């Protein structure tokens, strides 16, 4: 059986979005007997500057829809263009990153095609019949639901950071095919007056080691020790929502349901209680080390290594040791 998988590759300002690479890595590792194609949309400038990278993604085949009407991502225009493509090409599985744009485009595409969509997944498998089993957190991470769809393609969006990106050297260049369609009657009626990109979160979500701090760090001054330790270890700092709310850290480094999903090799949590909304963001971490003064804190049973200790004095000791 050959399962046909299509991945929507997001390109922003000529750069391939990290989540697209994460999805490709996951699909290649876990979907056996599948051929994995990609599709990318954009204007000439964006596509041309991303082209070299696009060819290195290790896809079976890459379709490109290039049109200067596609300069700004407009959910209506993108969804309708993708819909035309799907009417001409059959797939069993369709995957897209749950970025801000992906979350706008995917439901419109599903609606246009009258197919099911499972949004914001953190787990994806294909069963023996080629059906996609898409798992996502609900009720703020208190419950996980595995969802199947009876329409094809089985469609899911994937949380950025939920899967690991495994850089692979690929020798054969991807075959590229341009797909053209008529954009008659299909243009954006929105006028973007001003646009400002936020710093990409990916330079830290992809990090191997993450040092995170929570309310147990007690104050802003102590929280600087988290940054310092992260720096000494070549790790990235992160924070719980409570720490962000205290103003100790930027929201961009918040981990959890309303922050980032991360999948580092090692996640060291200092003074974080382990609320479900926080834990949802780290389910795919290889190893979790928790430091807490309360041995009954929820994180202590959710971690691989639970250490009962005062976080602040441990931070001081570690920094002292590493600065020598």
């Amino acid at each position, binding site marked *: 059986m050959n399962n046909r998988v299509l991945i929507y590759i997001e390109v922003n300002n000529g750069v391939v979005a990290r989540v697209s690479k994460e999805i490709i890595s996951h699909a290649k590792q876990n979907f056996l007997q599948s051929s994995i194609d990609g599709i990318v949309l954009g204007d000439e400038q964006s596509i041309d500057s991303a082209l070299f990278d696009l060819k290195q993604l290790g896809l079976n085949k890459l379709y490109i829809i290039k049109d200067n009407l596609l300069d700004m991502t407009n959910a209506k225009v993108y969804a309708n263009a993708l819909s035309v493509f799907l009417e001409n090409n059959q797939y069993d599985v369709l995957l897209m990153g749950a970025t801000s744009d992906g979350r706008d485009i995917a439901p*419109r595409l599903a609606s246009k095609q009258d197919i099911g969509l499972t949004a914001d997944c953190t787990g994806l498998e294909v069963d023996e019949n080629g059906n996609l089993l898409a798992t996502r957190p609900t009720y703020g991470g208190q419950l996980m639901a*595995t969802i199947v769809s009876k329409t094809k393609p089985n469609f899911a969006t994937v949380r950025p950071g939920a899967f690991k990106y495994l850089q692979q050297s690929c020798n054969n260049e991807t075959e590229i095919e341009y797909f053209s369609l008529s954009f008659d009657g299909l243009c954006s009626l929105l006028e973007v007056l001003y646009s400002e990109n936020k710093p990409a979160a990916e330079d830290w979500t992809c990090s191997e080691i993450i040092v995170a701090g929570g309310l147990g760090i007690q104050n802003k001054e102590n929280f600087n020790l988290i940054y310092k330790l992260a720096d000494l270890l070549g790790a990235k700092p992160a924070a719980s929502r409570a720490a962000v709310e205290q103003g100790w850290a930027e929201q961009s480094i918040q981990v959890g349901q309303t922050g980032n999903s991360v999948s580092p090799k090692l996640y060291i949590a200092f003074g974080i209680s382990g609320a479900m909304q926080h834990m949802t963001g780290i389910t795919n971490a290889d190893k979790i080390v928790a430091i807490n003064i309360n041995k009954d804190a929820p994180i202590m049973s959710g971690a691989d290594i639970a250490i009962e200790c005062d976080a602040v004095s441990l931070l001081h000791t570690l920094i002292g040791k590493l600065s020598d």
Partner: protein
Amino acid sequence: MTFKIVVCIKQVPDTNDIKWTEHNTIQREGLDSVINPYDIGAIQLAKNFKYLIPDSEITVVTMGPNQAIDALKTAVAMGCDDAVLLSDKRFSGSDTLATAYCLSQYIKTFVPDFDLIICGQQAVDGDTAQTPSSMAQKLNIEQITNVIAIKEANNDFSVCIKDTNDYKQEIKASYPFLMAFSQRDIDIIPDINGYIKAQNKTITVLNADDIKADTDSIGIKGSPTQVRKAFRPLNNRESIRIENESVQNIADFIVNEVNKCRTADE
């Protein structure tokens, strides 16, 4: 001409207070239902529009069982002018696609001359954020999601501020279009007049035939997605405990963990 605003809301279980049965289903007994917090934001935004565009009319709509009338009455007390409940046994089991279909059928049939649709960014029970975009597609209109504020609004267009994890934009749109509002911490405390208005308000109840719904597109039949299994996130980690150890030893242990993780790389 009246400026017609439709606000779509959802009644959700109070997620701050969920208790689980041993079968991983929600213990419904004694569980309060509330208006989805994001949808209260949507109602407030509609009121702001009404303030800016005086001849406006706000219709609030929800799909759900009869008990959702409570949510609609509350919405009227909060300042909506009219309230509509889409309720029919045949709707039950609808997923986001079928729900978006029903809502859009209602709008096509009863408010084809709408100017603006306002939704909450997402519902706190499902968090899927699909219904607004799915609806916008069925109505073939533009959408602006993740709206945090309105910079300017008049009869001809509005300028919205869209703020996402990835970017911030100011977008100008002419009507009709759909907007999803992402503030969830707004509360509206109705005054006594609001309550009186709500009490006297007749809620319009519509069924599948009223909204001219194709019965193949609603309820379980019209819902492609099905939950295969639901489970509480299990802890499958080994959970080694370290207690009563000196800070020095713990520091050595952590440095060692870091080094192990590094060498595994090579």
